[in-house]
């Protein structure tokens, strides 16, 4: 069954249509949450909340518009709230008390040598808006049009915001992560 049919069924309250829709988009939603929050547990919580909210508001979804940007827009707003939320630090604090050596530690060490991880670090130094637009456009590979749908702004605004964010990122990379583009700047 194609996505439009599943969306129409879901809009009419058919929960069985919601499951394949979630399966189709859960990776993008989870990844955006992970990029914005930097923590897989938080990302999972927020991704779940995204699909619950989307289901609760599916009747209001304009079926003429693309579905994935709508989901990513919800995810992005929830992730933004979560970054400021009370519970986040408690979860982090709690995890710190676990004695076992986390496997993620080792994985992270390996990843740190990875260019993509270095780039992510550089992006994280930007403000939330700039991060958001770079994640959507480059990390999640959304088109300018889709990015505009997520951010609910005109395409022209996406382009100008993107230019500003890239300019800032470029300076940060040149200053703090020169190794990232080493050999290409000459």
């Amino acid at each position, binding site marked *: 069954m194609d996505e439009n049919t599943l969306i129409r069924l879901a809009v009419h309250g058919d929960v069985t249509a919601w499951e394949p829709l979630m399966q189709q988009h859960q990776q993008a939603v989870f990844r955006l949450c992970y990029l914005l929050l930097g923590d897989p547990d938080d990302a999972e919580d927020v991704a779940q909340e995204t699909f619950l909210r989307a289901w609760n508001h599916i009747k209001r979804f304009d079926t003429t518009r693309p579905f994935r940007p709508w989901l990513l827009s919800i995810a992005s707003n929830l992730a933004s709230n979560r970054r400021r939320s009370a519970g986040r*630090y408690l979860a982090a604090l709690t995890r710190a008390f676990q004695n076992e050596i986390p496997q993620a530690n080792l994985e992270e060490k390996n990843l740190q040598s990875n260019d993509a991880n270095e780039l992510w670090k550089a992006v994280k130094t930007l403000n939330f808006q700039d991060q958001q637009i770079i994640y959507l456009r480059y990390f999640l590979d959304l088109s300018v049009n889709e990015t505009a749908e997520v951010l609910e702004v005109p395409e022209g605004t996406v382009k100008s915001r993107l230019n500003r964010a890239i300019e800032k990122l470029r300076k940060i990379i040149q200053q703090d992560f020169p190794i990232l583009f080493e050999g290409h700047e000459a």
Partner: protein
Amino acid sequence: MNDIEFENKLQAISKGLDYPSTPDISASVMKKIRPSVSHRFMPKGLIWSLTLILILLISLFAIPPVRAAILEFIQIGIVRIFPQNVEATIQPTIESAPTITPAPSMIPLLEAIIGETTLSQAQEKVDYQILLPPDFGEPDYVYVYDAAGDMTILVWMNPSQPQSVELSLHFIPESSWAITKMGPTIIELTTVNGEQAIWAVGPYPLRVYNMDEIEFTRLIEGQVLIWTEGNITYRLETNLSMEEAVEIAESLEPIP
């Protein structure tokens, strides 16, 4: 490198990011949304039976001693603890309580969310006295978080294992969030400076509330001593024993 080359490079590098594998989010969400839908297909007979049970339960709640038993909990400051047997009565088992995936360290995350400060800056900011355990000296990290009232968090790292926390101490003002612990494995009543205190040992689901909305539930492994003095609730989390935790709590002194 011109702008287009830079963008292309960005796109190429970002594709190489190694994400954690995507959890089965759809299954967890379906568990939460399916029950409400299944009512639509419930036979009328079953609906009547359930209505009858509901009426019986409401009647049961109307009898004061029963209600008192069901709603029994322990409250220390802003922290409310439902012992496990009571929890079983009032709340179904939380099947989907997420397990914890350990993170390398909480410190970078805390810094990102709250921002580290110094002890003197923290003391200037909050309107209560920050206390320290003399045997531990100054904390390694200090945070003040606006949680509807400035909450202070002091963290001491374990000197032999710099990645692990030895002790953390929260000062939570009265107006702050309500933090509810549901059914820890062990609860012991004790005292700190003659005032009632609780020693709670996980695992248990912890719910953090903000303005009457549940923010999140998480499974907690840990042991915490909670007590109140004046308008401040203290929450001391440590891997030490209860006796040692009480000793630390009773030794707290103002910043020299």
